[in-house]
């Protein structure tokens, strides 16, 4: 079969297409974005009419996918780890309803926080929802798990969680493809009440979910992704989950790992398998990226007398694993210190030169110098980089949408003026409801929606707010005369200052919308145009 050099994300996307997918639903988020983008660009997906447009946020994505599954078709949802917090209500309840068409939820965790606010571990969510979890060790496994995962999902009428991490998502390796499966035909759930979670029905559905747990564990015991590898030296036994299996093998390149190894790629944990290695070996070292999920389970199931990992300091408690800290844990090498020449300087990411956000912050900084520090509640996007010098403009960044609502709470507490700073895509993701709260209470608040017509931070995906922002604000009840628009260019600096000053004076809800396209997407558009006219 054909072999392609694919990122982990791309392998997942290709597997979904080949596995009979009818639609992917997603909101961008590093390191998951490339899954959906791959399907959007795929000619094959286009001819197969696979849905791949972006959703407003992870919750709408999760629910749309569940709807597609209700109608009998195979669906996928993709998001970064914090996206699952947004989608959690739908996610947890989808385990109770179960599915009709196969449903795979791909969540990309980001240990070491390369591009995120935290390093939460989605396996806890999967465990909480009581559904099977896949955790691939490499790109080929990621492909296989998705390709065959729809069948597992349909067999038990249960959504499947595929948990990956940044390293797998953004690492390329060769992947062998399988033959394309046909998409499902439309079909209603055989039990027409399956998706009604009224208490009387839900109690029954929940019992069904509980009854499936044993089968899930049996699947794990016989899964080819969970492998028990014999080893002569029983002084240690090693449990290696997902990509940590590679870090283990990297340390025994020329030889075989001398200890028994249990490779984990599918959950719930098979107690049979872990009990075997636990009983056979004098001590157990658990290698897992993210939180000590397996380690904690092991301790509660088997007692903690000989279990080593992130909790006892054998491995670092936070941050991702790598071949070196695994080597240290195995006693193979001393910790290698970083060599940092004195001359080396940090090079933090920054707003692109010429970015419209910068002009907005320059004006805002000037206005806020009259009021003192600590009053600008911001959000998540390129503009979050204004937290760093030289701008030093913002005082918060917590989760998407929190700018407006936190500014509201602070205003309620008497901190006035309080400013909210949010981007267009984040506004339609989860800022609109907060704005409605403000309108209802006529909160004296100044909200700046810095509109660059795109989702810049994640690489310039289409923004749901495009050409709709003003109407949305009006529709939510913001007064016309307090929706102020300007073009954030250096030459308009004075005008920007005036507008911000005036709206801070107003004791009700004001929305200021600076509008100028992101330079990165602008460049891309011009390039594409040139290429088209050249043809």
């Amino acid at each position: 079969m054909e072999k392609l050099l694919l990122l982990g994300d791309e392998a997942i996307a290709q597997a979904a297409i080949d596995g009979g997918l009818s639609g992917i639903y997603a909101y961008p988020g590093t390191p998951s974005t490339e899954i959906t983008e791959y399907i959007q660009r795929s000619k094959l997906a286009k001819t197969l009419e696979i849905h791949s447009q972006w959703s407003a946020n992870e919750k709408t994505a999760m629910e749309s996918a569940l709807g597609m599954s209700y109608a009998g078709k195979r669906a996928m949802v993709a998001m970064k780890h914090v996206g699952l917090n947004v989608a959690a209500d739908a996610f947890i309840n989808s385990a109770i309803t179960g599915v009709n068409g196969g449903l795979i939820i791909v969540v990309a965790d980001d240990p070491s926080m390369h591009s995120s606010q935290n390093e939460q571990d989605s396996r806890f969510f999967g465990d909480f929802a009581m559904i099977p979890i896949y955790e691939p060790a490499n790109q080929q496994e990621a492909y296989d798990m998705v390709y065959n995962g729809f069948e597992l999902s349909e067999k038990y009428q249960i959504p499947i969680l595929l948990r990956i991490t940044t390293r797998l998502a953004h690492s390329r390796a060769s992947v062998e493809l399988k033959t394309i499966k046909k998409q499902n035909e439309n079909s209603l759930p055989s039990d027409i009440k399956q998706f009604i979670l009224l208490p009387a029905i839900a109690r029954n559905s929940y019992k069904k979910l509980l009854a499936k747990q044993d089968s899930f564990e049996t699947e794990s015991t016989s899964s080819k992704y969970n492998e028990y590898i014999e080893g002569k030296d029983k002084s240690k036994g090693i449990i290696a989950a997902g990509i940590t299996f590679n870090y283990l093998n990297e340390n025994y390149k020329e030889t075989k790992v001398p200890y028994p190894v249990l490779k984990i790629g599918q959950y719930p944990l098979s107690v049979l398998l872990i009990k075997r290695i636990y009983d056979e070996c004098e001590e157990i070292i658990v290698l897992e990226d993210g939180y000590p999920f397996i380690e904690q389970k092991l301790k509660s199931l088997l007692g903690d007398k000989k279990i080593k990992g992130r909790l006892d300091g054998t491995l670092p408690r936070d941050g991702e694993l790598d071949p070196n800290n695994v080597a240290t844990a195995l006693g193979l090498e001393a910790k290698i210190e970083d060599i940092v020449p004195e001359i080396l300087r940090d090079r933090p990411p920054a707003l692109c030169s010429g970015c419209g956000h910068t002009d907005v912050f320059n004006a805002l900084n000037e206005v806020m110098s009259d009021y003192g520090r600590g009053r600008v509640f911001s959000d998540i996007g390129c503009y979050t980089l204004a937290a760093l010098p030289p701008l030093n403009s913002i005082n918060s960044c917590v989760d998407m949408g929190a700018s407006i609502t936190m500014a509201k709470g602070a205003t309620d507490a008497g901190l006035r003026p309080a400013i909210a700073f949010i981007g267009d895509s984040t506004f339609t993701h989860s800022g609109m409801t907060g704005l409605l709260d403000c309108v209802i209470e006529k909160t004296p608040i100044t909200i700046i929606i810095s509109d660059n017509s795109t989702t810049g931070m994640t690489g310039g995906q289409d923004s749901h707010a495009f050409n709709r922002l003003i109407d949305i604000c009006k529709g939510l009840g913001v007064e016309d005369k307090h929706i102020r628009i300007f073009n954030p260019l250096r030459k308009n600096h004075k005008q920007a200052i005036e507008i911000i000053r005036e709206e801070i004076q107003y004791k009700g809800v004001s929305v200021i919308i600076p509008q100028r396209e992101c330079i990165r997407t602008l460049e891309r558009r011009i390039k594409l145009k040139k290429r088209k006219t050249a043809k």
Partner: protein
Amino acid sequence: MKSDIILSGVGGQGILSIAATIGTAALIGNLHIKQSEVHGMSQRGGNVISHMRVSDKEIASDLIPKGQANLIVSVEPMEALRYLSFMEKDAWLITNSKPFMNIPDYPDIQDVLSEIKKIKNHIIIDADTIAKKLKSIRSSNIVMLGAASPYIDIPFENFKEALRQIFGRKGEEVVNKNIIALEKGREFALKK
């Protein structure tokens, strides 16, 4: 054979084009590849790294262990100094000499270059000027790759073929420009 290569630079400088060319050249030679990249936040002008592993045997880890890289290729001189702990003792460091100054406290470039010269095996190449002379400033990264090519265990012809595959749809002229850039970089390194 194995070549473990650290590629480094600043987000937006296009180190992934070097990675893609090495990857394609390795595939032509039927070698195993693993290549890990940085996406997201750091691409906004922050420091970026890519781990590129090529081997005739199966590769376990996507990440190169510290102390085991054979080669660092940096398209920016200060960034050449960021990942020194990855180098094995006979490793080579190949860097562009042109600084990318997007931070206020960028050190004196002469100090940066003399720090690089402390490394036993190093090549400092003015890839931008070479590319400019070829009237193909965009090929600066390919000049860098050319300079690195003697230290990568892949036949030189495969790199050329890779460029033909990658740039083929842009026409003969673009392909040739890149092949010349590759050759110029290699010549420079071999003269050292």
